[in-house]
């Protein structure tokens, strides 16, 4: 059966672990000619430099070729072509479709139509499963395990889709969750539901300092002003969730700080030179994970 990855929940725990193991091999050697003769459609209906270049690098380093677009303005979509028709056409030319689209649910819809394997590279505010895979890989590589970890999520836990996917995915690994956010941006109950369902411990904080000494991983996210109804509330909290190097004195030796990037000011540059900073390596891991994922979905083992 044709494989799709629309949401991280489409994969079983075993499938996730398998892809992460494959990613390790690509980290050892990312240049392999195993996608020779494969043509992959990379369709970006809205710009996203980081994700698109990461996918394209992953394909090209494996010898695959690419067709597609990086924004929708110069395509037949502007002439009013439906997403369904675009996918129906392109899947006749290519071996796989990778798509980013601003509409929520566009990925599920496209995956149903596509006759070739489909990867969601972000559908609106809904899902971005390859980010989740690279987050999992980064945790695995820095801690040598995914099991029994203390993970602290900081910032916008209400709207951050990367947080929601990662929380859900980590409930399979006996995680203890530390949730640090302003009251307005607490983790939604629909996501907490998965923690509770798995009977895992979680603690909520308003101050980041309280959670730092307990953490194996600190996952930082950006708090956006437009999320606040009251600008005064934003002004009050905006500096409370910024990580500085001097806050990382009483920490576990294995602590690593992750961030989906791009950061604005939530991680002070002073953190970059500490042994705890991992966010740039994390972005690099996106390459290996995407190489592994593409090969897995095409049925190519390494």
């Amino acid at each position: 059966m044709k494989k799709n990855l629309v949401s991280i929940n489409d994969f079983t725990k075993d499938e996730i672990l398998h892809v992460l193991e494959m990613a390790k091999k690509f980290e050892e050697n990312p240049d392999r000619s195993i996608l020779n003769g494969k043509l992959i459609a990379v369709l970006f209906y809205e710009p996203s430099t980081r994700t698109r270049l990461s996918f394209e690098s992953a394909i090209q380093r494996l010898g695959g070729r690419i067709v597609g677009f990086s924004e929708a303005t110069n395509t037949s979509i502007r002439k009013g072509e439906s997403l369904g028709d675009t996918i129906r056409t392109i899947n006749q030319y290519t071996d796989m479709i990778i798509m980013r689209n601003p509409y929520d649910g566009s990925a599920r819809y496209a995956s149903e139509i596509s006759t070739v394997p489909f990867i969601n590279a972000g559908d609106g505010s809904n899902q971005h499963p390859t980010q989740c895979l690279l987050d999992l890989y980064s945790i695995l590589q820095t801690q040598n395990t995914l099991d029994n970890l203390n993970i602290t999520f900081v910032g916008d836990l209400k709207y951050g889709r990367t947080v929601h996917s990662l929380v859900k995915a980590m409930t399979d690994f006996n995680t203890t969750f530390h949730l640090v956010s302003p009251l307005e941006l607490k983790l939604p109950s629909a996501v907490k539901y998965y923690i509770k369902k798995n009977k895992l411990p979680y603690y909520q904080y308003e101050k980041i300092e309280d959670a730092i000494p307990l953490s194996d991983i600190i996952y930082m996210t950006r708090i956006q002003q437009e999320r606040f109804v009251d600008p005064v509330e934003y002004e009050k909290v905006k500096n409370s969730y910024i990580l500085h190097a001097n806050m990382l004195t009483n920490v576990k030796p294995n602590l690593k700080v992750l961030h989906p990037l791009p950061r604005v000011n939530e991680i002070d540059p002073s953190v970059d030179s500490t042994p705890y900073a991992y966010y740039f390596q994390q972005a690099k891991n996106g390459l290996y994970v995407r190489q592994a994922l593409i090969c897995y979905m095409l049925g190519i083992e390494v």
Partner: protein
Amino acid sequence: MKDKYNKKELKVSALENGTVIDHIPQGVVLQVLRALHLENFDDAFYLGSNLDSKKMGKKGIIKVSNKYFEKEDINKIALIAPTATIIEIKEYEIIKKTKVELPKEVIGLVKCINPNCITNNEQITTKFEVLNDFDDIKFRCYYCEKTMKKENLEFL
């Protein structure tokens, strides 16, 4: 039992032919009416609200003359009024009495509440999973994965 039931019906008006939608939860009678597009119906229909009910405390009831509902309409009733009973009547006799059943999936009946959902931006049949968490009924869009409450249902 049967006599008592008929007496209550007579409080509104007996139907010769048609359908009685009984045991509608208090407060959603008008929502049921709108979902069935009865505002455009050109035969007689009756509404009752705040009626005493042994089972439910207060309930609502709708009686529609010369009309028998299709499966799709009955599914709509089930979504808004999961306790409802559908009673079909011919020549003052009850010919069929069924309790509505909450479906597991709702296909093509309702609109997704999320304006950024692909189903609101392209011609796609909507699809929702019905989540029944301790009688707190919610609908999760199969596409955008957003969940909406019963009160927010908008029928297509």
